[in-house]
C-alpha cells in the first residue's frame, strides 16, 4: 500500500512539474510568435510617405504617361501593346496594372492609410500631405475613367464589391480633400514633421499649400465645360498657387537601383517599343523650337531631359499653372491677363527645359494676338509626356489632331479608358464599358 502511494505521488509530481513547466515556459517560449518580423502591421506616416510619392511619380511617368502621350501623338508606339495603342486598341487587360499596382494598389491605398493614421495620431501636417496626394491620384483616375470607387474602396475583407461613386461626387470629394488639407497645413502642431521622407518638398509646408491650391485650380478648370463659373474659381485659386518654377511638384529618380529608375528610361531600355516621333516633334521642327533638342536625342529616341535613368517626372509645374490662368482669363474675357500668363508660362517652361527663354520672344503674344489655340498648343508642348495633355484636348479639342490612320474607333480619338479586367471580373458593381473608348466622362459630355 505504502509503495503504491509513493508511486502515485511520484506520478502526480511528474505530471504537475510537466504541466507547470509547460505553462510557465509558454510565455517566454511563444513571445511575439504571431508578429511577422519582416512586415509591419502598424506603420507610421513617416514610413508610408516616400512610397506614395515614388509610386505617384512612377505612374505619372509610366502607363498613364504612355497611353496619353500615344493618343495625343507626342510619341508613336512601334511594337507590341504600344503599337496597338497607337491604333487606339487598348484592352481592359492592358490597363489592369494601372489600378492594381499603380493608382489603387500603389498610391491611393497607402495614401488613404496614411491619412487615417495621421488623423488618429493628431499629425495634421502628414494628414494634409496624404490628402493632397490622394486628391491628385483620384483626379487622374477619374479623368481617365469617369465614375470610380472611392468611398467604399480600401476596406479589404469588409467590402469586396465597392460601389462606384459618380464623377461628380469624386470631384466634390477631391475639392473637400484639398480644402481640408489647406486648413490642416495652416494649423500648428508639434508632432514629428515631414522632412527627408518627403520626396517632393522635403517638408516645406508652404510649397505643399501652393501645390494644393494649384491642384484645386486645375480641377476647377476641368469642370468649366460643365459650369462656366469654374473659370473664375480657377483664377482665384491660382493666386495662391505656385509662384515660380521652384515650387514645381517634381518626383526625382536616381539610378541606384531598379525600383528607383525613371520609368520612361526603364521602359525604353527594357521594352523599346516606343519611338519618339509624332505630331509634337513635327510641330517643334516646323517652329524651330529649341525644345526639340531636349525632347529628342536626335535618333528617334527620348532626349536626356526626360529619358535618363535619373531624370525627374513632373506632376504639376508652375508653367502649367500659368497656362491654366491664361485659358481661364481668356474664357472670361480678360485677354490682357491671358497674354501675360501665357508669356510667363512659355518663359518658365523654356527656362526649366532648355535653360534659356530666348525663344519665348518668337511665340510671344499680346492681348490683341492671343488665341485659345496658342495657349493650348504651347501648353501641349510644355506638358510633354504629362497625362494632363489628354484632358486638355478632350476639353478644348486643341491642338487639332488628325486621328491615326489605322485607328479602330471609326476615325475618332479615344475619350476614356476601358474599366480594367480585374474590376469587371471581380466587382459586380463595375459599370459596363458602353461606348468603349469613345465613352465620355461626366465633364466631357
Amino acid at each position, binding site marked *: 500500500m505504502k509503495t503504491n502511494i509513493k508511486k502515485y505521488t511520484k506520478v502526480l509530481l511528474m505530471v504537475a512539474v*510537466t504541466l507547470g513547466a509547460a505553462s510557465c515556459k509558454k510565455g517566454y517560449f511563444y513571445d511575439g510568435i504571431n508578429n511577422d518580423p519582416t512586415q509591419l502591421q502598424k506603420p507610421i506616416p513617416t514610413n508610408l510617405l516616400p512610397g506614395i510619392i515614388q509610386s505617384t511619380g512612377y505612374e505619372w511617368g509610366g502607363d498613364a504617361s504612355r497611353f496619353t502621350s500615344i493618343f495625343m501623338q507626342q510619341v508613336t508606339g512601334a511594337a507590341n501593346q504600344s503599337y496597338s495603342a497607337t491604333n487606339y486598341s487598348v484592352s481592359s487587360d492592358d490597363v489592369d496594372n494601372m489600378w492594381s499596382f499603380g493608382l489603387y494598389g500603389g498610391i491611393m491605398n497607402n495614401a488613404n492609410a496614411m491619412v487615417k493614421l495621421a488623423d488618429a495620431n493628431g499629425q495634421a501636417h502628414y494628414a494634409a500631405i496624404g490628402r493632397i496626394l490622394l486628391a491628385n491620384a483620384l483626379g487622374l483616375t477619374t479623368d481617365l475613367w469617369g465614375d470610380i470607387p472611392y468611398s467604399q474602396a480600401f476596406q479589404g475583407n469588409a467590402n469586396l464589391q465597392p460601389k462606384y461613386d459618380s464623377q461628380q461626387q469624386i470631384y466634390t470629394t477631391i475639392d473637400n480633400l484639398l480644402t481640408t488639407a489647406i486648413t490642416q497645413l495652416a494649423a500648428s502642431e508639434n508632432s514629428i514633421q515631414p522632412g527627408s521622407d518627403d520626396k517632393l518638398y522635403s517638408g516645406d509646408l508652404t510649397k505643399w499649400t501652393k501645390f494644393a491650391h494649384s491642384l484645386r485650380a486645375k480641377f476647377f478648370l476641368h469642370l468649366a465645360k460643365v459650369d462656366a463659373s469654374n473659370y473664375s474659381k480657377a483664377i482665384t485659386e491660382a493666386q495662391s498657387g505656385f509662384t515660380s518654377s521652384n515650387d514645381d511638384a517634381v518626383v526625382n529618380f536616381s539610378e541606384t537601383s531598379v525600383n528607383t529608375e525613371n520609368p520612361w528610361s526603364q521602359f525604353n531600355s527594357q521594352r523599346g517599343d516606343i519611338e519618339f516621333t509624332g505630331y509634337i516633334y513635327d510641330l517643334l521642327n516646323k517652329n524651330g523650337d529649341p525644345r526639340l533638342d531636349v525632347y529628342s536625342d536626335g535618333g528617334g529616341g527620348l532626349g536626356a531631359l526626360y529619358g535618363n535613368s535619373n531624370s525627374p517626372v513632373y506632376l504639376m509645374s508652375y508653367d502649367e499653372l500659368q497656362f491654366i490662368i491664361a485659358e481661364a482669363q481668356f474664357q472670361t474675357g480678360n485677354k490682357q491677363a491671358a497674354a501675360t500668363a501665357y508669356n510667363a508660362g512659355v518663359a518658365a517652361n523654356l527656362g526649366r527645359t532648355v535653360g534659356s527663354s530666348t525663344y519665348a520672344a518668337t511665340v510671344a503674344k499680346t492681348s490683341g494676338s492671343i488665341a485659345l489655340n496658342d495657349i493650348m498648343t504651347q501648353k501641349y508642348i510644355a506638358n510633354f509626356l504629362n497625362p494632363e495633355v489628354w484632358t486638355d484636348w478632350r476639353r478644348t479639342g486643341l491642338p487639332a489632331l488628325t486621328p491615326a490612320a489605322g485607328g479602330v474607333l471609326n476615325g475618332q480619338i479615344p475619350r476614356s479608358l476601358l474599366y480594367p479586367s480585374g474590376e469587371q471580373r471581380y466587382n459586380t458593381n463595375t459599370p459596363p464599358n458602353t461606348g468603349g473608348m469613345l465613352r465620355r466622362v461626366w465633364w466631357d459630355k
Partner: protein
Amino acid sequence: MKKILLNFLWVLIMLGSHAYAQNRTVTGTVTGKEDGLPLPGVSVVVKGTKIGTQTGANGKFSLNVPSPNSVLVFSFVGYETTEARASANLNVSLITAQRSLNEVVVVGYGTQERRDLTGSVGKVSGATLASNPTPSFDKGLAGRVTGVRVTESSGFLGSAPTIRVRGTNSLSNEGGPLYVVDGIPIVTGNQSGVVANNPLADINSEDIESIEVLKDGSSTAIYGSRASSGVVLITTKKGKTGRQVINYSGWAGYATASKRLSVLNANDFITIANEKLTNSGATPKAFPTLDPTGNPYNTDWQDVVFRRGFQQNHAISVSGGTDKSNYYFSAGFADFKGQIVGNEQRKYNVRANVEQKALNILTLGFTSGISYVKNLGLNSGTNGLSANVNNALQALPNVPVFNPDGSYNISADGTVLGPGSNTKGIDNNYTNIKYILDNNIYKNQNLTFTGTGYLDAKIFDGLHARTQIGVNSLYGEDYQYWNPIHGDGRPNGLVFQQYIPTFNYDWVNTLTYNKIFGSHKINVVGGAEFQKQRARSFNAQGTGLSNVYFGPNNLISGTLSTPNIGGGIAENAIRSFFGRANYAFKDRYLLTLTYRSDYISNLGPNSPPGLLPGGSLGWRISDESFFKNSSALKFVNDLKLRASWARTGNVNIPTYAFASTYAPATYGTSSGIAFNVLGNDKLKYEKTDKLDFGFDLTMLHNRVSVTADYFKNNDNNLIQQVAIAPSLGVPGNQISQNVGSMYNKGFEVSVTSTNIQSSAFTWTSNFNFTYIKNKVTTLYGGNDLIGTYNITRVGNPLNSFYGYTFLGVNPANGNPMYLKGNGQTIQGDVTKGNYYIYDPANPTALVTQTTLNTADKTIIGNALPTYYGGFANNFTYKNFDLGIYLTFSGGNKVMNATRQETLLNQLFINNGTEILQRWNSPGQVTSVPKLYYGNGNFINTTGNASTRFLEDGKFIRGQELSLGYTLPKSIVQKVNMNKVRVYAQVQNAFIITKYKGLDPEVSNTGTSVDFNANPRPRTFILGLNVGF
C-alpha cells in the same frame, strides 16, 4: 574377467558410436544470416516439448535432448522461426523475418506489434536501405512502400526527390510528408538560395534502423495538423545487448549520364542552319571551321557538361550494450562527383546514441548526429544562356571549345561563343559553357545538428512517463560568384554570400500505459508537445568586382563598387495536446482512437485550435473458431481486416497569412513602407479526411504475406489565392481563402513471398503496386487555374495538360496543322506566321485567315501517374546473393518542352537529330514541319502544350541490380572478423520506355514538364561490408 572385458567392449562400442548418441547434448551457435553476428536470447526448444533453453551473449547454447532425432525449434523476435534436426554441433542461421507478425513497428509516440496494427504503415528496414546506397536515404525509398511515390526529378546530387504519400494534397502541388527523426520533426526542403540542397542527406543511411511511413488516417492522426501528406518516421540505431559489434561499410564507383540526347553533328548542323536561312530568303551563313591540321571541328558539347564522376562512401560504426545500457557510435565520409560537370557533394557525419537504465525505473538517453555537407552546383535553369543543358544542346557544333592557341573560343566582344568560320554569330547570346563551368562558383555548405535527450520513468508496472527535448539546427552558408569576363557575370561580376541559420526546437511529454487484463490488452498514450521554428538569413552581395582574383573564395571588403544587403526572419510555433488509446480483446478485436488539438501560430492569435480525431477497427478473422475449423482456409495463417478514418490537417499555409501587412522597400536613399498583403484572419488550415479499408494476410506457412488497402482522402479548405477587384488597393489583387477541395482515391497491394527456401538456395520477392486517381472537386467560383502547360479545372485531375491538338504536317507545303475548337482543321503558314483554314481539296491554298488561341485548347492529358510500384527479387545461392529490383510507373504524360523549344528551334543554333526529318519537298509525309529561320515560336507553339510534344510517361526501370559474395565463415574467422561481403551493383541499370527525352521522371517544374532537365545518373559501384 569376462565381465571386465564385456564392460571394456561396451565402452569401446560406445566410444566407437557417434559420440553424440551417448551424450544427447546439442551445442551450437545461432547467428543472423545477413550479418553473421551471434544472436543472444534466441529460444531453442525441442519441438512438441517444453524442453528448451536460450542462447547466451555469444549466441551459444547447449541443450540435452531426449532423442537423437529430436527437432529443435529456434525462434526470436524479428527473425523467421527455423527448425533443425539435432546434431552434436548445430550451427543455425536465422533469416530476418520479411513480414513477421511479431515485427515491431514504430508508430507516432510509441511502437506497436504489426499484429495489433489497425492503421496502414509501411516499413523499410535499415538493412534494405544500407544495401542499396544512394546519396540520401529518401531516394532509396522508391518503389519500396505501397502508396508512396518517390520521383527524382533531376540528376543533381543535392536535390531532393518529390515524395507523395497517396497523392498530392494541395493545389500548388507543394509539400511532402512530415519527417520525424527519433521523435523530433526536422526541417526539410531546400535550405540554400544558390545550390539545390536536401537536409535529408545529412542522415547517414547506415545509421538508420528502420523507416516507417504512416499512410492512412488512423496512423497519421496523432500528428494532427501536419499529417495530411503522410508522416515518415526515421529511427536511428541503438546498440544491442551482447558483444560489441564493429561494422565497416564502404563503396566506390562512378556515375555517368544514363542517357544523352542526340544532337546534330557539325555537317548536319551546317545543312539545317543554312536551310532555315534560305527558306526565309536569307543567304547561307554556316560553314565548316577547320582546325590547324585542316580537319573540320565537330564538337559534342554534351561531352563538356557531362562526365564520368567518381564516387565513394565510407561508414564505420561501433555498437554494443548490456541489459543496463547500450551505445551506438558511427562516423561516415562521402565524396561524390556527379555525372554533371560542376556538381559535387562532400559529407562528413558522426553520430552517438547512448541509453542508460538507472535505479530500475529510469531510462535516460540521448541521440545526436552532426553532419557537414558541402554541395557544389552550377547554373542549370531551364532557359539560362549559361545553363548547362540548355547551352550544350544548342551551342554550335562546328566550332571548337578552345582556340588553337589554347584560349577559350569566345567572340571578339567577349559576350558569346565564338563564331568560328560561320558568317553569323550564335543566336540567343549563348556563351562558351566550358568557360562558365570553369569559372563560376555556386556553393553551399551546411553544418547540421540533430539531437534528442530523453528521460523515461516507470511509475508503476505498465505506466511510463517520458519527456524528450529535441533540437534540429542547421547552419548553412551560400556562396555564389559570377566571373565578370564572360557569362552571366559580364561585365561587372557578382559576388553573393549568405548565411542561413535555422533552428527547430521540440519538447514532448507523454504518459504511456500498457496493461493486459486477461483477454483485454490496453495501450494508452497521452501527451503535450511544444514546437517552435525560427528561420533567419542575411546576405551581402555586390557587383563591380575590382579583380577576378577576389572572386572565388569569400566576400572581401573593398572589392565591390556596388554593394547591397538583404535579410529576413520568420518564426512559427505549434502547441499541441494529443492522445491515443489501443484496445485489443482476445487478441482479435482491435480498436484504436486518436485525438489531437493543435494551436498554430500561422493562423493568428485568435484562431481556434485544430481539433483532429481519428479511429480505426481491426478484426483478426483468422482467430475465429469458424475460420480455424474450416479446412478450406487452412492455408491461411493470419488474416486481419481493418478500417480507419481520421481528420488530419496541413499547415503549409503562408506564414502570417492572417495579418494585413506593410512591406519594406527602399526608395532611392530613403527606406519606406507600402501596403503589401491583405490578411485573412479567418483562414483555417487545409484539412484531409482519410478513409481506409484494408487487410493483412499471411498464408502458406507464413511464406506469403499480402497487404492490401483501399483508400480515399478528401482534401477540403484548400487555400487559394483568390482574385479580388483592383479597387481594393491590394497589389497583386489577391487574398488567401479556404475555398478548394479535391480527393485522391485508389488501392494498394503488397505481396511478399519466400518462394524457395532451402539450405543452399533461397528466393524471396516483394511486389507492390499502387493505383491512384486524383480529382479536383471545388475551386473558387468554379474558375480554372490556368498555367503555361497545365490547367486545374473542377472535375479533372490536378494540373491536367491543356493545349492544342496537333494534326500532323501538310505534305503539300510543310505547314503544321491543328484542330480548332470548332472542329475545323487549320494550318499555320510558317513563312508569315498566320493560320488559315485547311481545305483538303486544295491543300496549299492559304485563303481564309483564322486564329489559334486559348479558346481552342482542350485537356489533352494527365500529368499525375495513375499507377506505380516496385518488384524486388532476391536470390541467395550458397554464399552468393543476387538482387534485382525494378520500379515502374505510368498513366501520365510528359510534356517534352525540351524538344519543343530547344531541339527543334529555328535559330542559328544547334538542334536535335529529329529535325533531320523536316519537310523539304512537296508530297513528303513527315512529322516535322518546314524550317523557317526566326519563326520557331510559331512553328512549335512554344509556351503552350500541344499533343505534338506530349508523350507517354510510363516506364519500367531497372532500379538496382546487385551481386554479392559473402566470404565463408572459415576464412573470415581466421582474421577475427564476423562477416565480409563484397558486392557489385548497378543503379538505374536500364529503363524501358517510349519517352524520347532523357528520362520520363525528369520533370523540373513539378507539373510533368521536361524542359532542359539534367539526366539521371547510371552508377556502377563495388562495395565492401565488414563486420567484426
